[in-house]
């Protein structure tokens, strides 16, 4: 028997790693992957709460979070490809001019 708080702490650790990656990394693709890590941490706490309160709505919400993550990844990666085509770099610090 594992207490629910252990699952929440694991979810919190994953979320914190995601936020840290978002702040300290400079490669745009790695920043995107940190966002996906944050979403995964949130999914885990949804499923843990669903198991505790015996309500399947938590698991249904995980689907919606996954759908949003997929849509955001698709559009975000398309934007990254466009930015790379015009700026030739993947470093966010160097995309700092409004017009090339």
């Amino acid at each position, binding site marked *: *028997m594992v207490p629910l708080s252990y699952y929440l702490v694991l979810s919190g*650790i*994953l979320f914190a790693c995601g936020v840290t990656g978002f702040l*300290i990394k400079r490669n745009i693709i790695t920043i995107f992957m940190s966002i996906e890590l944050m979403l995964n941490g949130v999914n885990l706490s949804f*499923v843990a709460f*669903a198991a505790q309160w015996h309500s399947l*709505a938590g698991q249904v919400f995980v689907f919606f979070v996954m759908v949003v993550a997929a*849509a955001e990844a698709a559009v975000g990666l398309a934007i990254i490809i466009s930015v790379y085509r015009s700026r030739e770099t993947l470093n966010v610090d160097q995309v700092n001019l409004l017009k090339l």
Partner: protein
Amino acid sequence: MINIHLILFLAFGAVAVAGAVNLLAQTHPINGALSLIAVMAALAGEYLLLGAEFVAAVQVIVYAGAIMVLFVFVIMLLNAGVEERTKGSRVAIIFGIPGMLLGSLLIAWAVLRYSGTESVAVGALPGAPATIGELLFHEFLLPFEITSILILIAIMGAVVLASKPHPIPQGKER
């Protein structure tokens, strides 16, 4: 009490945290992508421990098998190299990592100390696909339809953004 549930939880949790920390530590994005796939697989194991078998399978199929394939494609296409340190990233590392560590330790302490000690059994809530399907089509029908429109918008946006730019036609001379 040490039982098999706790051991499995700690094993999957250790793999997930190791993958997350490796994502921060690696400089080449392809290594980060592979450690993120390991995190997702470990989380699928955690979902199985909680009884959510359908969610675990969908996590592997959709997240680890489709979204991360997109990431790996883009990394391979753009030939992303090792990222270099700039002044901004050094500042962020010096302030960011201790700050996040402190914040997460605080939250973990608060959660562990002030929550009740109810335990979650192995396979507590069997998430059978049939019941999830019923919920999805009866109570959650509106979010379901809205997410399908969201995916349609995302597809159109991605196609438009990734296509070759059209040359702007010059104005005709009067």
